[in-house]
């Protein structure tokens, strides 16, 4: 664990100075290298690869040795949520195989993270061998922002802010806490702490932030009339927040929210939190 | 004539529940702790409650008054009987109540409301059914009374509530039918919490021996503030089917 380090996280994509300084501090304190496997999630892999790139960049800047187990595909949650437990188990086995031996598993999604950490145990409740493997995985799985704060201790040390002549706040960001991150993985503070500490970010209040956006996987197409009502309310909240960027820790929710923002041509950019912390690139 | 059991036999019903649970008719392997209390344990629990309440009485009395006010009671803290009588009389005068129903309880021996109310022309009468009037007449009179006065068997500081135990002399209807209810609370009626109340009631229930042989009476009314509803547009309205106005007369001493 890195503790009592002055970690600069967010937008040093542009600041070679800060990057060097950080690297020097890491080198000086010489913590044991932290190795983490990225479980990138199928939605990022296939639809939003740039998010995965930002995740890797942020982790590396924090001194993490990142690897990508190539056997991974999907965690099985879409199947599990639709009741297809048998099919979901096959994908869960594949995922467990791929992630065997990882020191930490970082998942840039509260929803897929919940699948790995919480639902695999339910999935294998009647299979002692697999259950043991699921339990072993449980304690190594971290959602991306949770990993930064809990394991790397980014939240316990004040994020260093540049001197007065540093970059001023340039973007207003609204954070949507995704349901599974909040209520299955129980991660509430970490993303907001990171955003609060990000120098170029002004975190604004999102009204009714903890209301579901109406995605819910297949729910969005099975009951579009309800989903769209929920989505409309979420969009109204985003508009009301005055943010120029909406972010979350789940590309599922952001595909849903972003799909409507795009349809309505709203002047709001939609970014995964890793992209925001990566200086808005990607 | 009483109607006997006309459902399916108990044994059959319970067997189907057991079957669904996949269990035998053994009692719980891990006995439920509260139900293991014998009379000695219950007596001790009740004594502990009484001791603590006696020790904390000034605080509890203050807490009762504050909480009750928050829950919608008009709280009148009275130093003595005279003050309490004055309060009741001025209330009846304000309401223009000419008929005031009351229960027949010990408290009215030390707080003689009948005479005091008579002094301002209000008729205060005991709502008991064994009088010459008969049940229907008493109910009609109750419905026409402007005010109902009862004592309190308990008053709960935690919730700001008055508890009455309807019985001989204490109609179930005195505290609910008239539009205004006045409850006279003496220091010895005050308890701290819901747990205190149930500890005392459990002792009452089990007092006469084995479980089920005791009796704690047919009814317990736990009253906290006026009757109210929010069934139309979640807008609170007081005085639907019960009293719109309730007064807690807190006697500091009898």
């Amino acid at each position, binding site marked *: 664990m890195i503790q009592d380090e002055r970690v600069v996280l967010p937008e040093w994509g542009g600041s070679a100075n800060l990057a060097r300084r950080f690297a020097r501090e890491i080198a000086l304190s010489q913590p044991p290298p932290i190795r983490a496997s990225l479980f990138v999630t*199928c939605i990022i892999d296939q639809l939003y690869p740039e998010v995965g790139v930002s995740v890797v960049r942020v982790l590396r800047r924090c001194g993490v040795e990142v690897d*990508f187990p190539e056997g991974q*595909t999907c965690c099985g949650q879409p199947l599990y949520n639709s009741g297809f437990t048998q099919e979901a188990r096959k994908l869960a086995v594949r995922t467990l195989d791929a992630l065997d031996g990882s020191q930490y598993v970082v998942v840039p999604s509260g929803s897929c993270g919940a699948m790995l950490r919480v639902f695999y145990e339910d999935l294998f409740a009647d299979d002692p061998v697999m259950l043991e493997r699921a339990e072993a995985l449980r304690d190594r799985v971290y959602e991306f922002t949770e990993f930064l704060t809990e394991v790397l201790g980014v939240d316990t040390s004040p994020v260093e802010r540049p001197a007065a002549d540093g970059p001023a706040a340039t973007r207003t960001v609204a954070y949507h806490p995704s349901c599974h991150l909040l209520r299955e993985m129980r991660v509430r503070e970490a993303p907001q702490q990171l955003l609060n500490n990000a120098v170029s970010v002004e975190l604004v209040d999102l009204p009714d932030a903890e209301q579901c956006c109406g995605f819910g996987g297949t729910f969005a197409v099975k009951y579009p009339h309800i989903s769209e009502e929920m989505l409309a309310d979420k969009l109204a909240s985003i508009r009301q927040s005055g943010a120029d960027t909406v972010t979350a820790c789940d590309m599922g929710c952001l595909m849903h929210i972003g*799909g409507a923002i795009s349809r309505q041509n709203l002047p709001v950019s939609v970014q995964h939190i890793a992209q925001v912390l990566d200086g808005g690139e990607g | 004539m009483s109607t006997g059991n006309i459902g399916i036999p108990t044994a059959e019903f319970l067997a189907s*529940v057991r079957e669904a649970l996949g269990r035998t008719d053994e009692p719980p392997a891990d006995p439920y702790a509260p139900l293991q209390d014998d009379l000695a344990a219950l007596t001790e629990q009740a004594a502990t409650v009484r001791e603590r309440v006696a020790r904390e009485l000034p605080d509890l009395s203050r807490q009762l008054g504050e909480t009750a006010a928050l829950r919608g009671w008009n709280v009148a803290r009275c130093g003595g009987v005279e003050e309490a009588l004055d309060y009741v009389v001025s209330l009846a005068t304000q309401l223009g109540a000419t008929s005031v129903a009351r229960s027949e309880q010990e408290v009215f021996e030390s707080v003689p409301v009948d005479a005091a109310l008579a002094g301002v022309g209000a008729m205060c009468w005991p709502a008991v059914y064994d009088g010459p009037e008969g049940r229907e007449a008493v109910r009609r009179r109750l419905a026409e009374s402007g005010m109902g006065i009862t004592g309190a068997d308990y008053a709960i500081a935690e919730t700001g509530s008055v508890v009455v135990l309807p019985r001989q002399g204490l109609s179930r209807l005195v505290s*609910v039918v008239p539009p205004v209810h006045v409850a006279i609370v003496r220091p010895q009626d005050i308890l701290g919490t819901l747990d205190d109340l149930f500890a005392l009631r459990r002792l009452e229930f089990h007092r006469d021996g084995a479980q089920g*042989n005791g009796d704690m009476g047919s009814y317990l009314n*736990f009253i906290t503030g006026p009757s109210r509803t929010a069934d139309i*547009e979640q807008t609170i309205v007081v005085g639907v089917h019960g*009293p719109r106005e309730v007064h807690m007369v807190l006697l500091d001493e009898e």
Partner: protein
Amino acid sequence: MAEVATREFVAASQAAVRDEQLRQALRRAGSGFDGTRREAIAEVTEDVWEDWRQQARSIKEHTIAHLDYYLAMLERNVQAAGGQVHFARDAAQANAIVSEIARQQGVRTVTKSKSMVSEELGLNHVLEEQGVDVFETDLGEYIIQLAEETPSHLVAPALHKTRGQVAQLFAEQLGVPYSEDIEEMARIARVALRQKFLEADMGISGANFLVAETGSLVIITNEGNGRLCTSAPRIHVGLAGMEKVIPSLQDLAVFLRLLPRSATGQRITSYMSMVTGPRRADDEDGPEEFHLVIVDNGRSRLLRDPALRESLYCIRCGACLNVCPIYQRVGGHAYGWVYPGPIGSIVTPGLVGVAQAKDLPNASTLCGACRDACPVQINIPRMLLHLRHQQAESDDTNQRTVSDTDKALAQGFATVMSSPWLLRLGRLVGRALSAPLARSGKIRQTRLPLVSRWTRARDLPVPAERSFRDRWRDELSKGGN
């Protein structure tokens, strides 16, 4: 049993989301109830609240696991107090019991305080058919009885009605002048029902709790109608689902702390009435007979399945409805039966049959707000998942209701995801197929089934030109950015 319209969920919910008055009513109620609930929790502190939840949960776990034992204890003690207990396996039996008591006793008028079980049984209809006048006395229930509707919320039955609609109803049904003044409307109901309370031969109540130790029935109310129904008539009939029993009087304290706070945010309700048998010989008043009707009506089905058993811990506070984003959009009636919202989506399939209520477990985003709000920590999302699993894969063909399309899609997805190689192929095929539909990387409009249900309100991204794993292999694995 009450009419089951759960099959109509889609059509009913489509109509509901277009109903502007319903929308307003739901918004007001949901935020109102939930706001005060949160305040009430903050007042006692989260820690204390969690402690209470845990206590209540433990009591329910123990009781339901030994339900037969506590029902037997309850029956003994109700009898010892001079009351009668009647067990009913289903709605027809329960209705027959009440109907028979009414017949034997020559009952002409019944006043009722709120009882969800009675809604479940459709009891009013049965009594009316035998010539008994039945009056609902809870203001909300009275309104929906006049409107010939069913409750749309567990604690606020007429939540879906605006004041204007109630005013209209009162004017038409009671012949009073039209008034939107809520106090005036409450007064009208008071006047209309006051005489009924004193006339009625039989009072019918529900039960919030049944205390096995003492044989007591506990009801929690605000209006005072429950007190009148259980005090004035010469017969009192209590109706309760069999899960309502708790072991000891001591257990009641924690539930009295949890239930009102969870339901309306009240710290305590105006009234709690505890009925133990009929009036005693020297009591001033009270019913001469006390009957307790304990109803299974499908509950043993929930009991039998360990994954659904905890749905019987429910104390019907309605907190899950007030926080549910689905309930808040569609209201109670769309669910098609007596118990709406998240808990209804669990118990309704259990009580009326899974095949009757296919949509209910699926009409949820699994957001989990219901579980966090539940005062007895019922894990509703897990049970929804369990019911979906039964629909998809149950050995029992009555329960397996998933469509062939859904099954084929699931299997197709599973196949694509079964290896990185197939996933790559899948992506290339996906890109090729979606390219003609897309403009600047997004599908805006399509008539493709399913996909069009997404794109009617949202753009859809197409697979990226290079997947993350491609970029990992080509750039990132070599340490590049």
